[in-house]
């Protein structure tokens, strides 16, 4: 079928819309190399001074480390609990399964501001405000739904007979999970882990409420920078934030292509 005029116009319109979608992610790059000391485009000369500021500022460095630590810990926790829960939900039956599944997905559906509010109120008496543990737990809870979704999707393609064969040949549940189920659903787990990491790495709303002075993540410093001054260092920090996300997405895409994985 030859492409009609209408379909060509649709294609052009679609690319125009997609470019509007991608441009905002790119704007931080030129701004981060501006030669000026306020937020601007580098029309009159570029400079790497803002990256130097970023890399020599103890505050930014510390925020970078904190964000990394929190993202690694919370995504590890979410991946562990979410994977186990997804495997469990896949093999149990009963009236409450759908309700339990819905409960586990709730953190994804509830607006972040309400999660923030709920954590804030609950964390105070528990002494979890402004602590690494508090933020790691909060981010892990927000990320569990991601992992449950990706692992459940991987399990949907899993042949139940393999599990039954393993169990009827005498393998215990832990052995069956480790030796039979996990290897097959690894792409789903990997996807869940990557998404959980990015979720924590970018998370701002909940973090704003449950951290104060001691814990100051990268998005939080970016948020303050954007609202309080015009220092182009925030653009350099935004570039770091974007690149980290892109590296994880690219790594994930490469890994899943290598495996010839269908779900990616």
């Amino acid at each position, binding site marked *: 079928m030859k492409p009609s005029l*209408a*379909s060509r116009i*649709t*294609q052009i319109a*679609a690319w125009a*819309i*997609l470019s509007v*979608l*991608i441009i*905002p*992610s*790119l*704007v*931080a790059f030129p701004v981060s190399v501006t030669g000026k000391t306020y937020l*601007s485009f580098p029309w009159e000369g570029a400079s790497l001074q803002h990256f130097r500021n970023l890399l020599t500022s103890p505050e930014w460095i510390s925020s970078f480390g904190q964000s990394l630590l929190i993202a690694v810990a919370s995504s590890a926790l979410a991946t562990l*609990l979410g994977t*186990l*829960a997804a*495997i*469990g*939900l*896949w093999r*149990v*039956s009963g009236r409450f399964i759908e309700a*339990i599944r819905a*409960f586990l*997905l709730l953190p994804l*559906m*509830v*607006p*972040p*501001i*309400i*999660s*923030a*509010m*709920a954590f804030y*109120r*609950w964390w105070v008496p528990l002494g979890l405000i402004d602590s690494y543990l508090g933020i790691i*737990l*909060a981010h892990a*809870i927000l990320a*569990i739904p991601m992992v*449950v*979704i990706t692992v459940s*999707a991987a399990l949907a393609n899993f042949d139940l007979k393999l599990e039954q064969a393993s169990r009827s040949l005498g393998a215990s549940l832990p052995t069956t*999970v480790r030796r039979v189920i996990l290897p097959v659903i690894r792409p789903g787990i990997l996807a869940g882990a990557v998404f959980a990491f*990015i979720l924590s790495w*970018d998370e*701002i*709303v909940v973090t*704003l*409420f449950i951290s104060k002075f001691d814990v100051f993540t990268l*998005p939080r410093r*970016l948020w303050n920078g*954007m609202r309080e001054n015009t220092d182009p260092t925030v653009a350099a920090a935004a570039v770091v*934030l*974007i690149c980290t*996300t892109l590296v994880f997405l690219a790594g994930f895409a490469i890994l899943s292509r290598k495996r010839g994985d269908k*779900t990616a």
Partner: protein
Amino acid sequence: MTARTSCFNPYWLLVAPAVLLVLALYIAPIVNVLLLSVTDPKPGFGNYARIFESDTVANLIWRTVRLCLITTVAAVTLGYIVSYAMLHALSGVRRRMMAILLISFWISVLVRSFAWLMLLGHNGLVNDALLGIGLISDPLPLMRNELGVLIGMTEYMLPYAILPLLANMQGIDPRVSSASRSLGASNVQTFFRVFLPLTKPGIIAASLLVFISSLGFYVTPAILGGGKVQMIAEYISVQLLVTVRWGVAAMLATLMIASVLALMYVLNRFMKLSVVFGGAAR
């Protein structure tokens, strides 16, 4: 197998840790917030009465619903064009389009709001360009108003509209459109009489998903609205951090959760949630 194993499935042990953690540290605090709406500052429905008594609260709710509706219409319309083009694109082109979609989906809302700040500001790129080519003589007010918030929200919500629409369109048998054309219908007729009606579930699912997700917008209105376009989420944060009125904030949170869950329930009838979210995760 013994009788015991048949009545207790050991797989429950795998579900338990996540469920207990979410129950104790998420569901319980959420329920706590819901309860606050009828107990703080004093028991009763005083907080809910504010919807009718306070113009501020009524205006706030109306502004939020209005901005979310406009965002929904804009994102679903633009998203429909992209999905339609993706459906008919060659597989290589479609993969490239998908990559753009997923990258933008996963770029932080902060970074994207920051970018719009640089593009739409008084001395932003858009105004500079328009001034430069002489199309306008004074910078347009593109930011610190509802327009700026709408641009930021629509851009953020586009992937949420496209993924369910595309999932729906890919489920339509292409032979239906071919049949319509071979029976003599024009392309335009085929689109409006055959294809469009078949995508209704996708349009409804996408609209609900975008509307639900935009109700809770916090970062975009706060940054692009410049404090002038307050939506419910930002108002809640002011109530908590500045005026410390938990009751009002909890009442708004309860309304928001109730509408989100009700719309989710409807959404689930049009498109399995796993398809909606699964599409996003792929």
